[in-house]
C-alpha cells in the first residue's frame, strides 16, 4: 500500500514529474490522432475496395478472358454463395460526340442487378440507386443504350453537367444528365488472342448515352471507369463468340461464411472444374485464371496504404523511444533526489524489490496519467477534427490535410479503434516502465548507510 501512496505522492508533488506526464500525454495524443486518421483511411479504403470487388473474384488479367458460364452455374448451386456476377474488363478509346478527341479509359461490362447483389455497385449510383435494373436506361430517354460513368470521368470527357466536387469533398449533382453520347471503341480479340477484326478496321465501336454516375470512392475507379451493359461490353471485346467469355466472376458469400474459408472452397471448386475441362477446347484459357479474395484482388491498391500505415507506426516507435528517454531522465532525476527516502525505507525493512516496484509504480502512474490525458485530448480533438478543418478553411482558406477537390476523401476519419487505442495506451505505459527500469534498478541497489550519511544530505 505504501508503494501506491508514495508513488502517487511523488507524482503529484514533484513538478518534474509533470513534464514526464506531459511528454507521454503529447506522444499519446499525436499517436491517437494520427493512427486514428490513418487507420480510418485504411479501413475506409478497404471497405470501398471490398464493396467494389465483392468477397471473391475468379478472373484473369488476360484481355482474352475465359470461359465462365459453366463455372458460374456451379457456383450458383453452392449454398455458401449468395450471388455471382460475370464481368468484362478491358480498355477502350472513348470519345464524346462533340469532339474527335479520344480518351483511354477502362470499361467494365456488368449485369447491373447481378453485380449489385455480388458487390456494392448499386449503392454507388446516383440516379438509379433504388432501381439498379435501370442503371443503363438514361432517364431522359430510356430506350437509348446507357452507360454509367465513374463520377470523375464526366469532367475528363468535358461534360458541363458532370458533378462538381466541392472543397469539403461532396459532389453536387445536376438534376439532369448531359444528354450527349460517348462512343466506345475496343479492340476485339479471338479466344486464341488474335485480332478478331484484322483487316476490318480492328475495332468495335458503339455509342452510349449517360445514364448515371457511379461514386465508388476509389479515385482510380471513379476517374477512369465506364460501366457498360454486359452483352455490349462482351461484343465490344470480342468475347461474344460461340463460346462466350468473361474477364472475371465476382462472388458474394453468405453472411456466415468466413472469407478465407469461402475463397478456399471456390478455389477447390475451380481446381475440379479445370480438371474436368482439361481436354476441352479453350482449356488453356483457364490456366491463367486465379481465385482471389477481394483483399488479394485489390492488393495493389490497398498495399500502398498499408505500407504507409506500417511506416507511420515505425515512425511513432521512434517517437516512443524519445518518450522512453524523457521518462528515463525524469526517473533518474527523481530517484537522485529521493536517495534519502530510499535509505529511510530500507532502514524500516523495505526490500530492494519493493524499492524497485515503488519507483516502477511511479513510472506506471506517469504512463497511466499521461495516456489518460493524451487519450482524452486526442478523443476530443478527433470529435471536432472536421469542424476544426472546416473552420480553418472558412476563415483562412486553408485545408491542412487534403485538398478535397483532388483527393477522394470526404471527411477526415475520426472513429477511434478501441483495439488500436488499447495498444497505444499499453505501449505508452510499457515505454514508461522501460525508461524507468535502469534508474529503478539503481535505486534498488542503493545502500542505506550511504544514502543516510550526513555528507549525502
Amino acid at each position, binding site marked *: 500500500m*505504501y508503494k501506491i*501512496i508514495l508513488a502517487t505522492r511523488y507524482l503529484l508533488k514533484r513538478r518534474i514529474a509533470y513534464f514526464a506526464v506531459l511528454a507521454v500525454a503529447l506522444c499519446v495524443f499525436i499517436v491517437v490522432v494520427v493512427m486514428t486518421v490513418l487507420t480510418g483511411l485504411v479501413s475506409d479504403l478497404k471497405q470501398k475496395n471490398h464493396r467494389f470487388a465483392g468477397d471473391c473474384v475468379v478472373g484473369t488479367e488476360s484481355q482474352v478472358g475465359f470461359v465462365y458460364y459453366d463455372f458460374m452455374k456451379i457456383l450458383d448451386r453452392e449454398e455458401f454463395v449468395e450471388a455471382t456476377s460475370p464481368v468484362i474488363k478491358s480498355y477502350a478509346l472513348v470519345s464524346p460526340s462533340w469532339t474527335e478527341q479520344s480518351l483511354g479509359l477502362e470499361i467494365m461490362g456488368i449485369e447491373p442487378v447481378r453485380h449489385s447483389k455480388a458487390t456494392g455497385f448499386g449503392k454507388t449510383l446516383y440516379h438509379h440507386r433504388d432501381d439498379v435494373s435501370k442503371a443503363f436506361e438514361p432517364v431522359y430517354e430510356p430506350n437509348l443504350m446507357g452507360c454509367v460513368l465513374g463520377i470523375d470521368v464526366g469532367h475528363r470527357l468535358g461534360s458541363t453537367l458532370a458533378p462538381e466536387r466541392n472543397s469539403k469533398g461532396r459532389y453536387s449533382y445536376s438534376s439532369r444528365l448531359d444528354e450527349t453520347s460517348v462512343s466506345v471503341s475496343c479492340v476485339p480479340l479471338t479466344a486464341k488472342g488474335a485480332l478478331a477484326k484484322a483487316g476490318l478496321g480492328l475495332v468495335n465501336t458503339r455509342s452510349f448515352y449517360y445514364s448515371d454516375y457511379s461514386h465508388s470512392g476509389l479515385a482510380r475507379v471513379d476517374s477512369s471507369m465506364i460501366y457498360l451493359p454486359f452483352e455490349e461490353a462482351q461484343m465490344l471485346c470480342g468475347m461474344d463468340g460461340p463460346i462466350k467469355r468473361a474477364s472475371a466472376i465476382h462472388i458474394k458469400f453468405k453472411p456466415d461464411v468466413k472469407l478465407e474459408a469461402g475463397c478456399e472452397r471456390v478455389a477447390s471448386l475451380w481446381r475440379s472444374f479445370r480438371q474436368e475441362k482439361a481436354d476441352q477446347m479453350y482449356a488453356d484459357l483457364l490456366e491463367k485464371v486465379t481465385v482471389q479474395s477481394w483483399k488479394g484482388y485489390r492488393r495493389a491498391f490497398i498495399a500502398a496504404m498499408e505500407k504507409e500505415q506500417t511506416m507511420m507506426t515505425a515512425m511513432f516507435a521512434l517517437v516512443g523511444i524519445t518518450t522512453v528517454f524523457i521518462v528515463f531522465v525524469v526517473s533518474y532525476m527523481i530517484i537522485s533526489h529521493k536517495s534519502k527516502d530510499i535509505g529511510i525505507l530500507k532502514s*524500516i525493512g523495505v526490500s530492494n524489490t519493493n524499492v524497485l516496484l515503488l519507483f516502477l509504480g511511479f513510472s506506471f502512474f506517469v504512463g497511466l496519467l499521461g495516456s489518460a490525458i493524451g487519450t482524452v485530448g486526442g478523443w476530443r480533438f478527433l470529435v471536432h477534427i472536421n469542424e476544426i478543418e472546416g473552420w480553418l478553411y472558412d476563415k483562412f482558406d486553408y485545408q491542412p490535410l487534403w485538398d478535397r477537390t483532388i483527393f477522394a476523401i470526404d471527411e477526415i476519419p475520426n472513429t477511434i479503434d478501441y483495439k488500436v487505442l488499447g495498444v497505444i495506451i499499453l505501449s505508452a505505459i510499457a515505454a514508461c516502465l522501460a525508461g524507468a527500469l535502469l534508474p529503478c534498478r539503481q535505486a534498488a541497489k542503493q545502500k542505506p548507510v550511504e544514502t543516510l550519511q550526513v555528507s549525502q544530505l
Partner: protein
Amino acid sequence: MSKNDFILKAESIYKSYRMGATAVEVLKGVDFGVEKGEFVAIVGTSGSGKSTLLHILGALDRPDKGVVAFAGRDLSRYSSGELNRFRNKTVGFVFQFYHLLDELNVLENVFLPTMVSKGIFGWFACRGWAKNRARELLGQLGLGERANHKPYQLSGGERQRVAIGRALMNEPSVLLADEPTGNLDSATGNGILKVFEELNRAGQTIVMVSHDERVAQRAGRIVTLADGKIRRA
C-alpha cells in the same frame, strides 16, 4: 555477565571503507553487547566508527569480519527477507537528521513501518489498529495535535519525536539512536533524552550513539569507542 544475557551482541567486528585508493579501517575488532532493558550509550570522537557500529548492529550494514547476533542467532545467517523483517520489527532506528518522508504527514510517517510490513489486504485489515497505535504514540510524545502536519511544518525537536514514534511503531526489541540530539538545541535535546529515559523505564532496550559525554551520561551504561575498539564496557 554470561553470553546468553545479551539480546544483541557483536563479537570481533571489523569494518573498513575505501576512500580513494586507501582503505580506512573504522572498526578493528569490536566486542559489544546489550542486555535486554538496558540503555547503553556509545561515545567517541567524530569518525571513531560509532555510527558504523550502530548500523552493523541494526543490520543496515555488514561487517567485514565478526559476528552480530540477535537473541543468540547470527545475523549473517539471516536471509534477505529475514533481515528486512529484522529491520522492520526487531529494531527501530532514530537518526540525527530525523529522516522523515516529506511526502507523508506526521501520522503516516509514524505508521509507515506497519504499512511496510503488510500487503494491501493485510494493511486494510489492520489499518484502524495501526492508525490508533500511531495516534497513541504521538499523544505520548506530545504531538497529538500535529498528526496531520507535514514534517516541514514541525520544529527539529518535534520531527525527532515523530522519528521516535516511527521507530517504536512496531514495538521493536531494540531502539537504535544515532546522535538523536545532535541536531537539536540543548533544551530540545534534553526533552528527547527524557523521552528515552521514560521508554527505558518502561522496559525498552536502547542503544544510543553520541559524541557528547553529557548526553551519554543519561544512559545506564556508557561504552567508549576509540581507535576502532571499545575502551571500556
